[in-house]
């Protein structure tokens, strides 16, 4: 199997630096030309919620940074369907189109990658 990395991000967007530092790992893969996928699970699904205004926290808007991922060759963000459902969210409430993975699709998806980095 050729090398590829899946980065799983599981924290809310503004809980310390967790989400930002997981995103940095994705960007580093891209800058090293290592094929990478970005999967939001658990509270990580909140990172793409529409209408984020982080100006008064004050923090950089994480969803805006996620929308720049195609510039780094990450064409789609993967989102765990169960995590959305458990939080009462629908993909339509997210700020960009995503690839939703069902519980049954997750193991197959993870097996496509030679390494998984969990944040």
């Amino acid at each position, binding site marked *: 199997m050729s*090398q590829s*990395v899946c980065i799983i991000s*599981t924290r809310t967007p503004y809980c*310390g*630096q*967790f989400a930002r*530092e997981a995103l*940095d*790992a994705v960007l*580093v*893969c891209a*800058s*090293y030309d*290592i094929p990478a996928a970005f999967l939001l699970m658990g509270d990580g699904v909140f990172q793409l919620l529409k209408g984020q205004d982080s100006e008064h926290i004050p923090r950089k808007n994480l969803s805006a940074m996620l929308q720049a991922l195609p510039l780094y060759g990450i064409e789609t963000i993967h989102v765990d369907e169960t995590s959305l459902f458990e939080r009462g969210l629908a993909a339509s409430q997210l700020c960009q189109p995503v690839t939703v993975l069902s519980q049954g699709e997750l193991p197959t998806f993870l097996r496509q990658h*030679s*390494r*998984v*980095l*969990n*944040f």
Partner: protein
Amino acid sequence: MKFALAVYGAPANSQAPQSALHFARALVTGGHEIVRLFFYQDGVNTATAIAQPPQDESDLPAQWQAFIQEHQLDAVVCIAAALRRGVVDRAEARRYRLPGSNLRDGYELSGLGQLVEGALLADRIITFGS
């Protein structure tokens, strides 16, 4: 087997550095190779030289340093995460005109690329404290 370990939690608020040290010792005992240790997120605090836990508690930063030096391991601390949290070596202290440096000997500040590279070099990447 070749292992890379990633540590994301700090000694004072996470079990991650302790669990990782136990695991690393078991790897060495079992004849495995540790190709990289990578300290990221709050895990960078494991590498500070100026934490002083009470004498009746385990001194994880000291234990980690002794383990790294004894086995001459490649121990990398993420430079961006470390600068954010006040863990700096002499070069960074000079660069940013900080009043002191506190990175323990045996560690190296470097980029996040070392985590990804370590993960690809190793047969297994094991994460502590995600």
